[in-house]
């Protein structure tokens, strides 16, 4: 069972909808006990970095997530803000992130043409081979909504790259831990493939 973590940071319905459509067993939960029993975890998230970290720190959730991801090493997928939380921290906030992947979230430079937030469809190219990005179509496009982008300090942790003014890490990974900046659950069959891959690893 995949547990989609509900910590009050938006938009879980669409991930669950896509899991249902793919016949993937999943549930939404904010309960630490059921998170302890999860076989896989999805950490979604829309909103501000510090608010998200404050909520994760409540009720011992952060300790449980650390055990699941770092000790039990279950497949763990962060989406959007959920990806940024896997890093050391963000220019958006002052709290440290989960720190599982050596990276930071940085604000996009202001530009008249390339408006911030980066909202819309963009390409993402895989930069290493991994089961999570297996079988993606050549013309894949994904839906992005973000004002901060992730930059890894160790390029081995970069999984996909995208260009929007700057070239940034649109997906990161380290062992069992994955983060995607774009929304697979909002990216037609292209994103569906990623969620399907996650259900099969």
């Amino acid at each position, binding site marked *: 069972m995949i547990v989609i973590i509900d910590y009050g940071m*938006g*938009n879980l*319905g*669409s991930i*669950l*909808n*896509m899991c*249902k*459509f793919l016949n993937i067993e999943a549930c939404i939960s904010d309960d630490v006990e059921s998170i302890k029993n999860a076989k896989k975890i999805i950490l979604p998230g*829309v*909103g*501000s970095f510090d608010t998200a970290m404050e909520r994760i720190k409540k009720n011992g959730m952060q300790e449980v997530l650390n055990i699941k991801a770092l000790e039990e090493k279950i497949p763990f997928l962060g989406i959007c803000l959920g990806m940024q939380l896997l890093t050391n921290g963000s220019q958006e906030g002052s709290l440290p992130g989960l720190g599982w992947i050596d990276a930071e979230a940085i604000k996009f430079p*202001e530009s*008249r*043409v*390339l*408006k*911030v*937030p*980066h*909202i*819309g*469809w*963009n*390409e993402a190219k895989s930069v290493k081979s991994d089961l999570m990005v297996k079988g993606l179509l050549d013309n894949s*496009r994904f*839906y992005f*909504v973000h*004002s901060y982008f992730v930059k890894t300090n160790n390029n081995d942790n970069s999984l996909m790259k995208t*260009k*929007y*003014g700057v070239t940034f890490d649109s997906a990161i990974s380290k062992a069992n831990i994955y983060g995607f900046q774009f*929304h697979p*659950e*909002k*990216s*037609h*069959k292209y*994103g*569906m493939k990623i969620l399907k891959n996650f259900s099969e690893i």
Partner: protein
Amino acid sequence: MHINRLIPILLLNNESLVKTARFNNFSYIGDPCNTVRIFNELEVDELLFLDINSSREGRAPNLSILSDIANECFMPLGYGGGIKDSEEAKKIFDIGFEKVSINTNAFLKPHLITDIAKIFGSQSLVVSIDYKKNLFGKYSVYIKSGRKNIKLHPLDWAKEVENRGAGEILLTSINKEGTWSGLDLELIDQVVDAVNIPVIAHGGVGSVDHINNALSNQSLSAVGLGSLVVFQKKDMGVLVNFPDRSKIIKKLV
């Protein structure tokens, strides 16, 4: 390569999908769920639904139709019409939509933009601005489905809603809507250059050339499509379709 968004703007009249011309002359298009299924197969960039009479008639959003749509459409989805407060917005988000659009209530309830932006983030909020240009060339914003003139210039209102926390602006020319005569580029360019948030230009698109003419302003983020994607041609029957993506200008990044 950032892809410019083309967004079908689908008009709901409670349980039916309709299309208007200059905010009048309703034509019936079909059942929303069936129509949306076709757009889903066409892999359109995003869909925005506007219930055009809910604010005037005081109706709440039709959650059952919206929920059916979200269960099978895996793309960005937005809804506008009759959203009075952040609790109503939350109901829309919970079923799998990620944007709400407000128009009349953005003006009547001065705190609504900031409320929604604070709780759910600016990216979740599209403020819809309908405007008319009168015979003397004077621009004015209208609310209540184009019925009430609030005597503000769309440029001023656009800057104001950006300051209050809007994440995007849907800019609709009432004079142009449903006319197939091309977008109101003059005002679109002014607004796009005056705000930093993405603008969706809407009203009048009748061809791919119209889309590309607007997108030649590289600061424009998206174009809203109405008649073009639900009719065969001007004055012809219903045909749900989408422009050939390879013919649309891409943004050079």
